[in-house]
């Protein structure tokens, strides 16, 4: 029962909130959709902490895409043994994880000690920090502990198939229940983070400005499309 709740119901509820929440937020709150950078207040610590954290977590995210979405059978088929895969994933993952956590530590220290940054911190930010750091610590801890004890768990046989099963609507909770407690806690925390995501500043992830690479430098826009901040009312659109 609890298993169904945690590993079937929770993922779907959180995913629904994640998707619909973003749609709703984008429609309702384009103006609030920002990184809310605090660089103006303080830049010395940010200069070290922020790139460390962000590049670290980008690597971590990339690792998760590889680990969760690519089945073990595929990598075996191209001749990468589980041992080799695990060694690479573990070493890269740990480096990225430590980078992320180190960066986050600097950023949180900065947030607490630099006056203007601290007073610009909202409750929403604090919840986000707890969830995000919780997920990172659980993930990194599980990886490191599993390897230190000498019995690394092959999550690509348990967590990954379960994760994919959610997306083709045949959720199989028995798979994840076979994984050690650390993995289970990590995924539960992650789902909760995803549910909170659209309501936090984390939405800025989805505005990564990749279009900048291809667009012309100077953007011209006609005044006519929408004047001022008021949207054009139905029936008042310009006739082309």
């Amino acid at each position, binding site marked *: 029962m609890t298993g169904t709740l945690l590993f079937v119901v929770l993922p779907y509820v959180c995913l629904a909130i994640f998707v619909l929440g973003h749609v709703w*937020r984008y429609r*309702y*709150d*384009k*103006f*609030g*959709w*920002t*990184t*809310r*950078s*605090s*660089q*103006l*207040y*303080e*830049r010395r610590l*940010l*200069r070290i902490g*922020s*790139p460390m*954290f*962000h*590049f670290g977590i980008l690597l971590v995210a990339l690792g998760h895409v590889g680990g969760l979405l690519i089945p073990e059978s595929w990598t075996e088929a191209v001749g990468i043994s589980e041992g080799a895969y695990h060694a690479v994933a573990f070493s890269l993952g740990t480096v990225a994880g430590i980078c992320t956590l180190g960066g986050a530590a600097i950023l949180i220290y900065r947030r607490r000690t630099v*006056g*203007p940054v*601290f*007073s*610009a911190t*909202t409750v*929403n930010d604090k919840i986000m920090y707890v969830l995000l750091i919780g997920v990172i610590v659980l993930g990194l801890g599980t990886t490191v502990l599993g390897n230190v004890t000498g019995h690394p768990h092959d999550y690509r046989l348990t967590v990954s198939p379960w994760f994919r099963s959610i997306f083709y609507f045949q959720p199989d909770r028995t798979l994840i229940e076979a994984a050690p407690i650390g993995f289970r806690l990590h995924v539960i925390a992650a789902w909760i983070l995803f549910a909170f995501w659209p*309501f936090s*500043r984390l939405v*800025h992830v989805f*505005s990564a*400005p*990749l*279009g*900048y*690479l291809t*667009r012309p*430098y*100077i*953007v*011209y*826009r*006609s*005044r*006519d499309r*929408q*004047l*001022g*901040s*008021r949207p*054009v*009312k139905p029936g*008042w659109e*310009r006739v082309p």
Partner: protein
Amino acid sequence: MRVMAQMAMVMNLDKCIGCHTCSVTCKQAWTNRSGVEYVWFNNVETRPGQGYPRRYEDQEKWKGGWTLNRRGRLALKGGGRIKKLFSIFSNPKMPAIADYYEPWTYDYENLTNAPLQEHTPVARPKSLLTGEDMKISWSANWDDNLGGSPDHGDKDVLLKGIADKVKFEFEQTFMFYLPRICEHCLNPSCAASCPSGAIYKRAEDGIVLVDQDRCRGWRMCVSGCPYKKIYFNHRTGKAEKCTFCFPRIEVGIPTVCSETCVGRLRYIGLMLYDADRVLDAASTEDEHGLYEAQRDVFLDPSDPAVIAAAEQAGIPRDWIEAAQRSPVYALINRFKVALPLHPEYRTMPMVWYIPPLSPVVDVVRDTGYDAEDKGNLFAAIEALRIPIDYLAQLFTAGDPAPVDLVLRRLAAMRSYMRDINLGRDPDESIPAAVGLTGQEMYDMYRLLALAKYDERYVIPPAHAEQAHSLEELATECSLDYDGGPGMGGSGPFGEQSGSPMPIAVENFHMLVDRQTSDTMVDSGNKELRVNLLNWDGKGRPEGLFPPRDERR
């Protein structure tokens, strides 16, 4: 030829008395909100001085604007697209709040709440960022009127080459004021730096704006603008900038800074330019050639070929006529007395300046000679190399020749007009000496000295067929938006999240009506009914107060 129209401004620095009225009214209109306490879309700097933010002109440090790369092609000085994306998590060139100043208020409550004590209670300065006590050590005009310049006057970026020659001793110094707004450049490097593509140039009038709904707070525009006229709102996390008061411009009235200028030194008008030639002009190899190159981009609005091309480009007829009457065009291209601010940044700025003759005149007058005699003035222009070199650093990338010509023209105008004012025969050799005819010189005098409101501001309104959706024309209910009138406040995701409010509730047409009518407000007329935002305190219009109770 691709004709585009640009709303542009010229400021006559000789008339600036440094009263900061433009800054204050601009701040009241646009940046009196939280998050932009430190922001002055319009600021007035005393030159020589460090400016605001401090030493913003040091592009070796801030890397704003454009530069020519090794192949001679135009490139962002702060680095190209890839470099921008990789430094997105922490912009290495962004000024910190200390480079502007830490905004503050005073603890006024203490003046009334303090207990009885021996000493008078004081209102302590409190930081608007942290709420803590603070020591005020800098502001947007800390070095106003050369205040403190013996200590830090040498930090002016432009004095690099001539610092040892400029004296900050009171008796020997020269100074003038430089009001600055966003330049609304033809080749804006802020827009080019914006990863989100939120900064755009309006195709109709060239005003550069930030789309607040698309800005994601990456901060690249702040460092990309060499004039440091894009500011980061630290509460909303979005970039903000001077809007050229577009809601006012759209209905044909000048910007707030121009409207309230005490010295009436600002001119607003249209410039037609060839958009296809902008890139070439901005890539001019010799920095000294940039001023001329930009002037070449401008099109003569009286040229039939230009008119035909402009009509083909969809520029309305009345806009072309406005361009022909444009005081800005006259000052830049006919009389050639206006110069661009820092053309070497290669952004093709569109707020130009008439350099001040007064440092020269002051010196001549102080030495007891006739300061309206052209011989004396010309000789002084010849002799006073330091002010002229300084002005050249500001306006022509260091080339003294154009500054020299402008000052000679202004000096010639003084002598020429004195003869006329004294009833003598005008000396036609004076305008001829600076390459003008007597009539041109007189026209220039009219524009610089006498021009009335409608000659200084030639602003064609946006078009009536589009009028229903202009920001300031409330043909839709002006209170028809989330939260209703005056409902600022915060959404659940931080400062002012949710749908944005219209920029101002005030209907500027009402303001125009009031300015041009000579009767008191008639409350029966809905168009003119009381609006406290523009009630000027005259009379006691009906409807302002509830009716008195007759029974008493």
